[in-house]
């Protein structure tokens, strides 16, 4: 449970990704600039206090009461200098918002007070997460109860885990080892015990680790079983007679809604459509889908989402054709049941 050699005091904690190294560089670079801006105060404040102490012989002639140029100078110059760090920290933040396309996806469910991780192959683990080094990993996270926050200090990243929608966190760890997983958002009694271990392994070792764990079914395959078990396939299946949108090729595409808006078919959309089907009714369909709220737990939802994701994105060649048809005959396009 305890990561490597953490029992003893350390002055420093390794940065194990290039992102983490850049965060350190920016932090200490910015602190350096700020120290530079404080130096005049740090030197002059004690100097004035001593030099102009009551009764000292220093001259007080021509004491200024203001100095426009100086005042504008110290208002604006430090601000402009610090904007350099504003910009770079923002760019780094935006990079962190965009996971690479080919990132390996791991599903995370947070609950009072444990972390559950599911690998794409179906391997699950609790309070520990094994990942390969040098490979981008994307965590798709949701909470079953209150707000948690997944914090990986060695990677210098964290992200709140919300109960109503999926949030993402991605990283590419470069150095093998064992590191902390912490919950950073107060979540109740055992908040400080909601900790785990991130194990970064060589890719071969990771594969061996996966293989050693009898993969019963992949996440998507389990989702497919649930898809039938919950009766989803009755309407959304290939041969359904009920008019419901087909889910093949849905993933990642824009979905026109009955109210005129559009949403992107991502994990949160799929989950919302299962629990709150009236929230986003697809254009051209009647709002007849029943809500599964309270009937499907987050773990099953994760599997269902993985299955729908596995049905793939719409073929790029086919997309424009369909869009054209949508454009010309809006009503009929909506009525089309399946491709």
């Amino acid at each position, binding site marked *: 449970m305890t990561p490597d050699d953490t029992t003893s005091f350390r002055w420093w904690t390794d940065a194990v990704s290039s992102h983490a190294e850049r965060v350190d560089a920016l932090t200490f670079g910015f602190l350096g600039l700020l120290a530079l801006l404080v130096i005049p*105060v740090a030197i002059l404040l004690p100097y004035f206090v001593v030099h102009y102490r009551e009764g000292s012989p220093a001259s007080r002639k021509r004491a200024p009461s203001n100095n426009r140029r100086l005042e504008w100078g110290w208002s604006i110059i430090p601000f402009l200098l*610090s904007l350099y760090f504003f910009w770079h920290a*923002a760019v780094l933040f935006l990079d962190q918002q965009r996971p690479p396309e080919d990132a390996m996806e791991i599903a995370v469910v947070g609950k009072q007070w444990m972390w559950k991780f599911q690998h794409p192959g179906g391997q699950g683990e609790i309070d520990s997460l094994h990942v390969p080094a040098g490979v981008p990993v994307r965590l798709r996270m949701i909470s079953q109860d209150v707000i948690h926050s997944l914090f990986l200090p060695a990677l210098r990243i*964290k992200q709140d885990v919300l109960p109503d929608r999926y949030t993402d966190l991605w990283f590419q760890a470069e150095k093998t080892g064992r590191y902390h997983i912490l919950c950073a958002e107060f979540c109740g009694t055992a908040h400080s015990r909601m900790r785990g271990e991130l194990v970064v392994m060589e890719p071969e070792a990771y594969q061996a680790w996966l293989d050693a764990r009898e993969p019963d079914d992949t996440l998507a395959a389990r989702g497919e079983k649930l898809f039938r078990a919950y009766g989803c396939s009755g309407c959304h299946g290939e041969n359904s007679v009920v008019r419901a949108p087909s889910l093949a090729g849905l993933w990642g595409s824009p979905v026109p809604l009955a109210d005129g808006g559009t949403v992107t078919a991502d994990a949160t959309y799929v989950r919302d459509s299962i629990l709150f089907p009236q929230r986003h009714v697809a254009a051209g369909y009647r709002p007849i889908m029943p809500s599964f709220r309270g009937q499907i737990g987050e773990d099953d939802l994760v599997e269902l989402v993985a299955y729908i994701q596995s049905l793939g994105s719409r073929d790029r060649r086919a997309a424009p054709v369909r869009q054209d048809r949508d454009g010309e005959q809006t009503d009929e396009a909506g009525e089309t049941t399946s491709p």
Partner: protein
Amino acid sequence: MTATATNPASQRPTYLNHAYTLWSWLSTTDHKRIGMLYLGTLTLMFFIGGLAATLIRLELMTPVGDVLSADGYNKVFTIHGVIMVWFFLVPSIPNTLGNFILPLMIGARDLAFPRLNLASWYIFVAASIMALYFLLAGGVDTGWTFYTPYSSMFSNSNVTGVIAAVFIVGFSSIATGVNFIVTIHKMRAPGMTWFRMPILCWSLYATSLVIVLATPVLAISLLLVALERVAGVGIFDPALGGDPLLFQHLFWFYSHPAVYIMILPGMGVTTEIIACFARRRIFGYRFIAFSSMAIALIGFGVWGHHMFVAGQSAVAAIVFSLMSFLIAVPSAIKVYTWTATLYKGDIRMAAPLVYALSFIVLFVIGGITGLILASLALDVHVTDTYFVISHFHFIMVGASVSAYMGGLHFWWPKMTGRMYAERPALLAALFIGIGFVLTFLPQFWAGYLGMPRRYHEYPDEFQVLNVMSSAGAGILGLGYAMPLFYLTWSLRHGEPAGDNPWQATGLEWSVPSPPPKHNFVEIPVVEHEAYSYRPFGAQGSERVESDEEIQR
């Protein structure tokens, strides 16, 4: 001007000796007496909050939970946060020093609404009793931030009761805010133009605006939490169809400006002390006056920097980050201005100045680390860790309470007619400054290495830093406790202070100490600004310059 060495209390009618009964205090509408009532109440609340902090530091000396249970620890840090924020820091300087000094500074006989002022104290006392009852009998384990859906649907503690107490105490803040705004607008003595007012009046004015505009939003958001908790109305809990992030937006819309409620008055007090003890007109008066207003205004546009990892949009995050950089500008102006004011002064090292100087040091450290937190990718790593804890303690506690202590020592002779003992006062100031830095510097480091906040137990590697922090807290606690003794002692045994022991030039020093019941026998006519020090004033100056030159 010359200090008379007669016993101040016995011969002349003052606000203290015109009546002695308990009822005369409980029914007073005199801003000075109400200030003293607040001083007593807030001191009590400060030590209750401090006791909770002591328990926290004791628990964190070891990585395992051995002093308190997990729930006990969660309740103790909630007591600490709720009491310190709403029942000490927010009212601290405005309701004690501000209440006492503001009318004297602008040449008024009282605040605009004396009875509202008394009512605000009663509301405060009622809310305090209520908060203490719910916090101690059963307790609350949400932290002072009451994040949903934990607070609204999951916590099994007295959330509703404490929320009600915080809701009620808000009215006390609003009453004081409205009172100050109206007083500053309508009751300045003839000739007391806006740009002749002491800087403390400007910062109290800015503070009051923030209080009046932001506190209702806090009230609304707490009311909504209570509504969801009690009636099950789905507002924040997704299981009821609500949005948990909505609460964070509403809460920080108040609670970020609330940080400025806590620090702006401290900046004002520091300015007064530095001008007086350096015998210098404050450098760049207009810049420092407007910087208070700028902080108050920009302060409403930065709340989202508490939510960079909460799931708000990237565009919003960038805007909030930029705004947070922007608000550092007026703060930096103040620091440079205070330094420049010392240039060519006649600096007299006394306890109030030591407090003011430690205000500057602590404020600078808190401000610098605030900019790290305003930087997006850097905040992602350090938010919700001890880095944040340390940062806001430097500002809200280190700096704010230093200013409060400095102001208390500075105006103590005016408020009581007695001098405190200088030697223990210097010692206490030193203990507070050094103890504070020892307590909180290690917390920055623990936070950067990854220690999350609100942890009852923590990984072993953080123990050394936590022990260092707890040791520093011992010195800090001693420093905070000392004034309680020597200031109380001075009430009876202190040297009579005389009207103006610091040879200061504000209007408040032109009346006897302690002031008579109605402050001014005749409302003074003001002919120059509050800082008649070098280069403008009588003391050590070449000449008194015209207003136009002053207002350059």
